[in-house]
């Protein structure tokens, strides 16, 4: 019985053949394929051409070929092929083993694996491409914004100077408009530059002690006026438990608060804007401070809560809401840089509340280093100063000239080549008190010239304060300037007060 079943149901999986050294099949058991006998094996399938030279080797050797696809007389199998040769002219043995089922399973696994590897490589490639594109965009924006700054400095300075001349009321109005639109333009350029820094990971906080209360008072003052101009009420609640001086990045904190307040005023048409600041706790020299900006404006739909913080994404596409739409994206990033989160709750049509808790350094020994009141920059009235301006942009030359001229206390020399700078520096009869140095001169670099000044033989000459004027203020740039011996950097575009303030600081 068993033998009968075996005969009937066993599928042969192996074929043995004995060959002549030239490839002629002497015997074959027809286990898998029929009609092997009397043929040359190399005519049966091109695979066997490869084994012919081995057949002639009269040594005891086993050669294995695994996973070979054979297609013979329209029967297809995947097989392992074993060739056994012998010493003493014994005829070689060829074994073909059918492993089709086994290898088909392997094929399925390999298919899945290879496809997923290839897909992930393609994805990686796409990502690199996208990153390159993104980096290009950011550099482009950064460079482009820098180019806008010189002309903008010119516009801001001259409209400022113009506003101080004798004007009739109509002209005064025009100047007012010129001033506010160019300030608005400056703000937009600054935002775009900030975003490009943020997106390329080049923006860092600079932590220093500052007068927190004074900063808030200033903001309150400005926004009470801004709100009133739009017919809105401005409420400000200050928690008297808050420390007056804290350590943090004052400039970026101001940016967060004013961006949120600007946003609140922009989208509120009647009612009020409320600004609350309170102390959560002080622990281990850390003050956790709660900020809250509440408006009664148009509100935000819940599905848009995420979108409002995305670059260049103005949820409200209505044309009457001007701006780049970058303000909130910057807020979100800056807040996250302090390891915190910005929260928004809103009632569509009724108003929104933005809030965040930010940690600052707080301890009683914190002192604000030096603060110069921008509105009252004073110089020793009995002295005259020699300022050397190294600059080749005529707009900036004129701007600086005009600003310093208003004080009547400065002699200004303007040069643009390294030789001229050094010649002027060693003029003993008329010593330079301070150098204002443009960094990107047409043919030279200001930081290089600064290096040369720092090598002059006379101590008081080589120690002259050098202030760089530039729009390139990325971290790497600042490091470079410092290494070149530059004392401080004045960021372009600058206004009258910023220039005078920085000069005053270094002329003491």
């Amino acid at each position, binding site marked *: 019985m068993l033998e009968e079943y075996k005969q009937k149901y066993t599928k042969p999986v192996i074929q043995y053949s004995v060959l002549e050294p030239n490839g002629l099949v002497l015997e074959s058991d027809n286990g898998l394929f029929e009609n092997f006998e009397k043929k040359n094996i190399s005519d049966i399938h091109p695979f066997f051409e490869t084994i012919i030279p081995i057949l002639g080797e009269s040594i005891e050797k086993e050669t294995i070929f*695994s996973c070979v696809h054979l297609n013979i007389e329209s029967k297809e199998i995947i097989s392992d092929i074993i060739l056994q040769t012998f010493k003493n002219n014994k005829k070689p043995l060829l074994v073909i083993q059918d492993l089709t089922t086994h290898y088909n399973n392997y094929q399925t696994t390999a298919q899945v694996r290879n496809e997923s590897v290839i897909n992930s490589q393609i994805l990686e490639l796409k990502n690199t491409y996208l990153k390159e594109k993104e980096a290009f965009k950011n550099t482009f924006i950064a460079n482009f914004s820098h180019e806008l700054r010189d002309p903008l400095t010119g516009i801001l300075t001259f409209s400022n100077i113009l506003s101080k001349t004798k004007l009739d009321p109509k002209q005064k109005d025009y100047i007012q408009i010129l001033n506010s639109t160019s300030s608005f333009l400056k703000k937009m350029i600054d935002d775009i530059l900030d975003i490009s820094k943020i997106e390329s990971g080049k923006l860092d906080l600079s932590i220093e002690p500052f007068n927190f209360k004074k900063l808030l008072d200033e903001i309150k003052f400005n926004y009470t006026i801004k709100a009133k101009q739009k017919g809105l009420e401005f409420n400000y609640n200050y928690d008297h438990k808050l420390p007056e001086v804290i350590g943090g990045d004052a400039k970026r904190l101001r940016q967060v608060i004013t961006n949120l307040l600007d946003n609140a005023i922009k989208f509120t048409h009647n009612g009020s804007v409320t600004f609350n600041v309170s102390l959560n706790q002080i622990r281990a020299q850390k003050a956790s401070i709660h900020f809250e900006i509440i408006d009664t404006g148009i509100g935000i739909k819940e599905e848009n809560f995420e979108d409002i913080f995305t670059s260049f994404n103005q949820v409200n596409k209505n044309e009457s809401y001007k701006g780049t739409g970058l303000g909130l994206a910057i807020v979100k990033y800056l807040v996250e840089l302090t390891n915190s989160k910005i929260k928004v709750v809103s009632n569509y049509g009724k108003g929104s509340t933005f809030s965040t808790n930010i940690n600052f350094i707080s301890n009683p020994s914190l002192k604000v280093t030096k603060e110069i009141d921008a509105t009252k920059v004073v110089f020793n009235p009995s002295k005259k100063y020699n300022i050397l301006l190294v600059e080749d942009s005529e707009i900036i030359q004129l701007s600086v000239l005009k600003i310093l001229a208003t004080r009547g206390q400065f002699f200004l020399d303007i040069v643009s080549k390294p030789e001229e700078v050094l010649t002027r520096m060693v003029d003993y009869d008329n010593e330079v008190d301070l150098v204002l140095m443009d960094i990107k001169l047409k043919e030279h670099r200001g930081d290089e010239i600064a290096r040369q000044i720092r090598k002059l033989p006379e101590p008081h000459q080589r120690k002259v304060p050098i202030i760089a004027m530039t729009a390139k203020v990325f971290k790497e740039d600042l490091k470079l300037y410092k290494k070149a011996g530059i004392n401080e950097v004045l960021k372009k575009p600058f206004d009258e007060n910023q220039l005078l303030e920085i000069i005053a600081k270094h002329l003491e």
Partner: protein
Amino acid sequence: MKISKKIVLLGHFGVGKSSLIRRFVENTFSENYKVTIGVHIFKKNVEIPEKDTDVSLVIWDLEGNDDINNTRLSYLIGTNAFIYVYDVTRPATYENLQAEIDFLKEKQKNTPIKVVGNKNDLVTKAFLKENNDNFGRLTDLYVSAKTGNQVDFLFSKLAESLL
């Protein structure tokens, strides 16, 4: 007896080895990817008018590997020429080009190797130029199984050079 030459195609998986052979042998192409396991063997006659003869090419289409060291060495026995294929669009397939070629040179001394960059239909000439210092300097020919560009040329020049 007719002259017969064994040509082995090697390279990472998915670079288009099987497609190049299919283009050469059957003059067809498919976008579908069926992973090759083990080896498939094809045979095609090539006429060499210059030498007034013809050669039968026995072409071995090997399973692709991301490391040539995993190649089953018995497959290489008796090889007359290698075609090493990479995919110009996937850096992983040409990152170790030099090392892979060196491996072959060591295993089969004096066997000619043709290095071809496949899928040139997917990239521009400028891209190939930009990468001259990268894969370009090691490459003999850029081809496309999809368009058939340079495929016949590759095999027939190789056959001719083997005579």
